[in-house]
């Protein structure tokens, strides 16, 4: 129960299949479930053609700012753990090594900022889950990094319009822009278009729910 694993059948991107999100308490919190959904939805993100001003919104409905921030925090925990590990695992050198260090630092700052904001709003930051990232070598690292960063951008873009506080919204915008910058830099490392489309598709509620369903007990 505390070790739910995405399967290849459920995901368009097999490299995500073995990403574990473990929860010591035995129960997956709402934000962890949402995170799994976001990752899965992010994997199919490329297949969705979305007009920019189509009424599509919003990755979550009815969530409080604390809920949304905890969702973001879980995503940032994932990224910061991923890059922290990558310092020794990704076998990066030169320019890429500097980039990994930068991303690890940025994501850690996002974690601290989000946790701090949640507390200021009177909420309780979610505990850091345990993660297991299935990759080997620099190539595997870069591939997974690209998925995480692109997914992060879409998750923030989808959730941000639900935020009630203007301060929190601007803070989330400030973070998502940095995620987008990370995504572009990682994509350049992968010799891919840094900005593949004119609009970064948000993850909408339907996508997330559809993706989350298989993981709900």
């Amino acid at each position: 129960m505390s070790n739910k694993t995405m399967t290849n059948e459920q995901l368009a991107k097999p490299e995500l299949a073995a990403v574990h999100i473990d929860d010591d308490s035995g129960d997956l919190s709402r934000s962890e479930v949402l995170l799994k959904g976001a990752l899965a939805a992010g994997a199919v993100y490329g297949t969705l053609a979305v007009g920019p001003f189509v009424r599509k919104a919003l990755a979550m409905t009815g969530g409080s700012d604390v809920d949304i921030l905890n969702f973001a925090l879980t995503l940032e925990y994932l990224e910061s753990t991923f890059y922290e590990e990558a310092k020794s695992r990704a076998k990066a050198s030169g320019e890429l090594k500097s980039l990994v260090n930068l991303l690890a630092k940025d994501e850690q700052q996002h974690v601290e900022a989000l946790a701090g904001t949640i507390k200021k709003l009177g909420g309780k930051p979610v505990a850091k889950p345990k993660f297991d990232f299935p990759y080997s070598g620099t190539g595997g690292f870069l591939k997974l990094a690209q998925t995480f960063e692109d997914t992060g951008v879409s998750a923030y873009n989808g959730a941000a319009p639900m935020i009630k506080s203007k301060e929190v919204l601007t803070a989330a915008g400030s973070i998502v822009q940095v995620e987008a910058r990370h995504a572009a830099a990682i994509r350049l490392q992968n010799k891919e278009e840094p900005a593949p489309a004119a609009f970064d598709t948000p993850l909408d509620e339907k996508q997330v729910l559809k993706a989350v369903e298989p993981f709900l007990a």
Partner: protein
Amino acid sequence: MADIKQLAGPQSRRKFLAVGGGSTALAAFLAACGSDSSSTTTTGTTSMSGGKSETAEFGKGDVGILNYALTLEYLETAFYAEVVKSGLFKGADLATIRKFGQEEAEHVQALTQAVKSLGGKPAPEPKAEFPLKDAKSVLELAGTVENLGAAAYLGQAANIESPEVLASALAIHSVEGRHAAALNTLLGESITPDGAFAVPADVPTVLKSVEPFIVG
């Protein structure tokens, strides 16, 4: 609604900032954007320009914000079109510039549509001229323009009323961020010049920066 006003009000913002001990990064970020986020309240009392929104000259409410963004996107589109024609770039760099230019043109189209769908009149395309001396200075200008564009969107996000318009603006904002990071990479500069938290720019700052390129 009460909680929104409470959080957006200047008093609670000070409180918000004051508790910042645990997270210096967030405190620094909020301090950095505090001055212009005070204009995000629609109460009029805390607004920077005497109760009017910063984008009032472009139209009311979301239309004004969209027209402000449209004006910037027109400039970016014109800039990239001139750069493509200049012959200063070839190969992969030219392909990147062409791609970014196409994306800016899509932003122009989308914003124009959005203004119309809100019943507004799209801002006219400004006449613009850009100094195109050599590849390096052009890339530097591109980097400046994109970083500014991203900061401009970020500066307006909290002012947008319609969730749909906000979702769309965010979908563009992060693409501007991608462009900026890619250009910074080409220039050998930091992909995140503001650090882990991007800093928004207010309307007067942005307009002052683009003024030199607008003719007539």
